[in-house]
């Protein structure tokens, strides 16, 4: 922009000179962004498509036949078919992915419900009626998340083995609860913090009891946040592999474990892999897009609004 007005000295202090030239500069700077925007738009779209290519390619390949899927160069325009999906659901092998999908759903939903039951009261005691030293408690929660899962997985495995909880989907759900609880507390605290203090005060003055306050004042403000927290916890549980691999086996294997196991080294299988990846990712895609509005706040643990 300085090239447009080369005679004017650039000054760091917004003095009267800057104010005087405001209208003229406004007019010119309006033009720049529009030109930039077209360029930025094209660049953004190109990059967005580049990032989306693996996903789009996965979806396209999943609708191809195995022979069309494994060609070099790729057969983009090949005919579409549902064969790969039928194969994934066990049309010829007889191995159904349904038990693993149901296991994943069980562990994810169970742990998410439990996380909410534990995290909502905790967040209440950290935000609406905070305990003393509530920041210390918050950082204790976060520090447990920093401890790598792998440092605790052996004792958990040994415990499960001796307690007969190995290959038990509910035990896995409990582990997912502990995995998600710290981040859920952080997310929930941030969402409960949005409840205006004045409203809480007003409710108290009006003599509203705890339950009534929760139902009428806290819940309406916090509900979207609670939903987003639940969806994000669901995603993390659904995605988890390490604990599932160590703690489950034949009976309680989850969808990610099933995915790692069913890739065979022989024969053509690319379309089937893609179909499997699509099916297993669908719940996450739905949950992610459902939580889109609050996704950033949730994922940043409430630090970004």
């Amino acid at each position, binding site marked *: *922009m300085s090239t447009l007005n080369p005679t004017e000295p*650039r000054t760091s202090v*917004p003095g009267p000179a*800057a104010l005087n*030239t405001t209208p003229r500069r406004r007019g010119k*700077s309006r033009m720049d962004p529009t030109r930039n*925007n077209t360029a930025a*738009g094209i*660049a*953004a779209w190109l*990059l967005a498509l580049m*990032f989306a290519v*693996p*996903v789009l*390619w*996965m979806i396209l390949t999943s609708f191809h036949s195995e022979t069309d899927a494994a060609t*070099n160069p*790729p057969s983009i325009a090949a005919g579409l078919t549902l064969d790969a999906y039928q194969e994934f659901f066990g049309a010829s092998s007889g191995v159904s992915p349904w038990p693993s999908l149901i296991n994943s759903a069980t562990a994810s939903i169970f742990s998410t419900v439990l996380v909410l039951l534990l*995290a909502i009261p*905790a967040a*209440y*005691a950290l935000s609406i*009626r*905070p305990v003393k030293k*509530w*920041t210390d408690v918050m950082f204790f929660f*976060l520090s447990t998340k920093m*401890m*790598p*899962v*792998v*440092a605790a*997985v*052996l*004792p958990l495995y*040994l415990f499960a083995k001796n307690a007969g909880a190995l290959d038990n989907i509910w035990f896995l759900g409990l582990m997912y609860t502990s995995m998600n609880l710290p981040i859920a507390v952080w997310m929930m605290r941030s969402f409960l*913090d949005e409840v205006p*203090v004045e409203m*809480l005060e007003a409710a*108290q003055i009006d003599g509203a009891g705890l339950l009534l306050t929760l139902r009428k004042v806290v819940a309406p403000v916090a509900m979207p946040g609670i939903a987003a927290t639940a969806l994000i916890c669901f995603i993390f549980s659904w995605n988890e592999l*390490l604990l599932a691999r*160590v703690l489950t086996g034949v009976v309680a294997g989850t969808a*990610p474990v099933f*995915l790692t196991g069913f890739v065979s080294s022989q024969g053509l*299988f*690319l379309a089937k*892999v893609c179909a499997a*990846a699509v099916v297993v*990712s669908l719940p*996450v*895609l739905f949950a*992610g*897009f459902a939580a*889109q509005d609050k*996704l*950033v706040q949730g*994922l940043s643990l*409430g*630090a*970004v609004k």
Partner: protein
Amino acid sequence: MTTATARVSRHGSTTAKPSRDAKARERALAWVRRAPLLPALIFLIIVTQLPFVVTLVISFMNWNSLSPGTTGFAGFDNYVQVLTDPYFLQAIVTTIVMTVSVVLASLLLGLGLALLLDKKFIGRGLARTLLIAPFLVVPVAAALIWKHAILNPVYGLINGTLTWVWSLFGSDTPPQTDLLSSAPLLAIIISLVWQWTPFMMLILLAGLQSRPMDTVEAAQMDGATPWAIFRHLTLPHLRQYLELGGLLGAIYIVQNFDAVFTLTSGGLGTANLPYAIYETFYFANEYGLASAAGVLVVIGTIIVATFALRTVFSLFKKEAGR
């Protein structure tokens, strides 16, 4: 916030005289406040802290479940072994290289994308949605897609595209790559950067959009170049968002297991610490050794985290103190 709520909730007890009775009531009240917190705290301590204590104990034991007769106290032997074993040393290096490069690359790419998406253009919402998609593919599924559909040397998309482009120019000897065997760590890093860039982009975009526009406009009026605005206004504002994204990304990427397990099964020097520990106890049944490695990981994490937590704390304080 804290003081305001405290005032509300202490409503009933502030008028009481500082007698012993009142003190007891205050204490009871404090416990009433703590009560909702306790289930979550107790649950978390039992499920995460207790196992770690057990890990600590096992790390000082000579324990291989395949040879039960030799189980016993080992002192620091396991630690010495971990720190001298080339496999573990390699795993430490791999973990650091993987974490640092994925976090930095996805932060830089995410920053670029966030700056682009901060501008208005046609179809911005759809472009944003497309960019989030990689983050919403199950990590194992993403790793499988990268391994088989994209990086496969025979029919993967990369080599397929190379063949196609070269054939456009009438060449039937296109260059072909095999990243999974020639640079397996790079292959893992690329797939992780692809998955984590959207995450960074989302956080940085939120940071950009919370930027006070009046200072930017004032700078524009003063004739500041776009670069100067970026360097002196945008970047300082984004700093804490960059730190936050880096910290959260690092927490997850240090622990990455899925990509290493699926893409290379830890072969060719790609085993990071989580994978190495998994292999040590799951396949080699060296419980003591795996635990010692686990304890070392935690110590390393604590060292890094003390620095990292300080930065989160600044953002957190700013946000909480509104």
